[in-house]
């Protein structure tokens, strides 16, 4: 089944098919029995799902949510109540993570310059570089978000995570740097 036919069948189900396309699909269905059977099955399913009932939340649910929220907030220490050492570790680690990203940015910039110098491979290199930078920035954001949550829930564990983070990030950057240099070497040969 082609993508066009598939789209037409789906648009018909959703009521988005204009008259001209509806005529075209009708013609196709008349000429192709297999397609007609498939459309008939899809229509039957569609009718059944369209009439499917909504399920209502149990009456106690809202109260349970609010009680659970109150409990979470009670158990959750404010950032100001986090031990001094943990707060210092947080600040230090954020600085170290930012510093760790500097060599990566340097490598990325170098790769970008090389990509621009090369004629036929420039697009691929640029795409790789941009994708890599986006990936690492996203990873940094995700890790910091997770640590923020951990700081609230288990400040003691957060200290360990924070201490390990810069090393982990630096290792990733080094691996990428080595891989890039290796690729550059292979490219020259």
């Amino acid at each position, binding site marked *: 089944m082609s993508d066009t036919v598939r789209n037409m069948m789906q648009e018909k*189900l959703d009521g988005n098919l204009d008259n001209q396309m509806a005529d075209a699909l009708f013609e196709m269905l008349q000429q192709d029995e297999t397609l007609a059977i498939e459309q008939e099955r899809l*229509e*039957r*399913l569609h009718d059944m799902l369209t009439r*499917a009932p909504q399920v209502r939340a*149990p009456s106690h649910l809202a109260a349970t*949510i609010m009680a659970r929220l109150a409990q979470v907030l009670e158990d959750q220490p404010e950032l100001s109540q986090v031990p001094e050492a943990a707060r210092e570790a947080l600040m230090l680690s954020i600085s170290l993570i930012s510093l760790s990203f500097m060599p990566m940015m340097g490598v990325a910039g170098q790769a970008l310059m090389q990509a621009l110098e090369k004629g036929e491979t420039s697009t691929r290199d640029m795409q790789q570089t941009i994708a890599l930078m986006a990936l690492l920035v996203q990873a940094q954001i995700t890790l910091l978000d997770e640590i923020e949550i951990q700081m609230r829930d288990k400040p003691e564990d957060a200290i360990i995570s924070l201490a390990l983070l810069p090393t982990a990030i630096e290792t990733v950057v080094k691996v990428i740097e080595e891989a890039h240099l290796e690729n550059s070497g292979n490219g020259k040969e």
Partner: protein
Amino acid sequence: MSEPDPKLLEWILAAREGDQDAFAEIVYSFQDAVYNLCYRMLGERSEAEDATQEAFLRAYLHMKRYDTDRPFKTWLLSIASNHCIDRLRKRRMTWLSLDEPLPSGSALALSSEEPGPEEAALHNERREYIQLMLNELDPDYRAAVVLRYWYDYSYVEIAETMGTTESAIKSRLFRARQKLAEKLEDGARPPEPDPVNPRLLSND
């Protein structure tokens, strides 16, 4: 873009500042929508309750990240659907194999939880039947179907909720519909069989 409900916006801004009463209003307003999504995704009431609680807690803790230019319901449902998808992936091995046939109509009738008037029984039976079919879909497919049919979301809205593209949703939804239609044919007939759809025979 539609204007956000001023009352809702007020609750959101207050909840951001830690006002639990304002957040309670949000919970009351959206609990049915979130619970229905979790139930349709997870197929089990107690787990759906737990997932709903978790989704609201996450929403509260991350309320500052909510962009007030976007529909709040879409943001909230995206938290719930992502959470349900994670749960389903963790327990994937316990689900029925796709190759196993659906239980028969009589078995479904016996599994109805709320015996009562005939109409209510039939209603429950159909709900359970649909749920059994949904349970056999992959989590991403299931979410697309639930958002399309129970929330009347467009492809764009589903894509936004699930963090993917419109074309990916179109493709996912069509595959899901095909799989469900096959199950409908191969498995038990629904409790109230539909006649051949007359819309197919008419040219409109």
